[in-house]
């Protein structure tokens, strides 16, 4: 499973980057429509899907591929 980043929801608060135990996430240089710097998976191979980014993200940015479209 690859974690999907819903880029339009991201507000660039950085809580996921702070709490990620494997340091997978970084700020990318891109910005979304709201003007926030978005988070990106820099090292997806290091991700062990612990779910801490999902737990700490206030905006529900990290989801499974299939759970957002329903």
């Amino acid at each position, binding site marked *: *499973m690859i*974690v999907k980043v819903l880029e*339009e*929801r991201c*507000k*660039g*608060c*950085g*809580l996921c980057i*702070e*709490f990620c135990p494997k340091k997978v996430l970084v700020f990318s240089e891109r910005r979304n429509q*709201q003007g*926030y710097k978005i988070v990106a998976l820099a090292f997806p191979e290091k991700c062990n*899907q612990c*779910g*801490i980014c*999902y*737990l*700490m*993200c*206030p*905006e*529900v940015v*990290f*989801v*499974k591929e299939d*759970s*957002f479209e*329903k």
Partner: protein
Amino acid sequence: MSQLFRFPQSLKKTLFHYCPGCHHSLIHRLLCEVIDELGIREKTVGIASIGCSCFLYFYIDVDIVEAPHGRACSAATGIKRARPDLLVFTYQGDGDFAAIGLGDSLHSASRGEKFTVLMINNTLYGMTGGQVSPTTPLCQKTTTTPLGRDPQVHGYPMKIAEMLGNFEGVALSARVAVNNPKRVLSAKEVLKKAFLYQREAKGFTYVEFLSACPVNWKMDPLSATKYVDKLTEIFPLGTFKDIG
């Protein structure tokens, strides 16, 4: 843990209007996860209050009533008494629950009305620009206490969860925080317990969330999240009443 990485079904896909790093939206998600896990989406009614959370009906896909400022507990009393089969929750801030609505809130608790209160304590009035609220800790700077809260002038902070622990009608009174992953998980457990107690008609259930307000605390999201640790020294986390 099956909920991880699943977008909660009761949460609408609208983008949140909250500031970056605000814990409101995290608590919205926890609430939606609990509603989904208990399967009570079709018989839940929420009471939104005035404050940053007044647009609750944009985000949570259950029936929501907007109550006047501070009157959420009274509106919830009416709904719960008319339809005891529904599960009713109110979603209030500290300015709403503990300042203007203190009378309504305490009398609902002392009558033992069987609904759940989510109180989001960010220690100031967030929506109106960061004025002092009853739960502002001593020495905290706000727009109306620019030199810090002085007990001789502005009084002492009010500890609502401890106070409600002494009420006979209260079934559960707890204070939780959501500033690290462990606390998020335990906050969800407490919230779930509150809804279960309500379903068993045990009494008034109260869950207080210590929440970060980065903009009005004039901090960045990370330092605001860390500052909540400091707040827990003034407002200790824990369950102050649980009738089991």
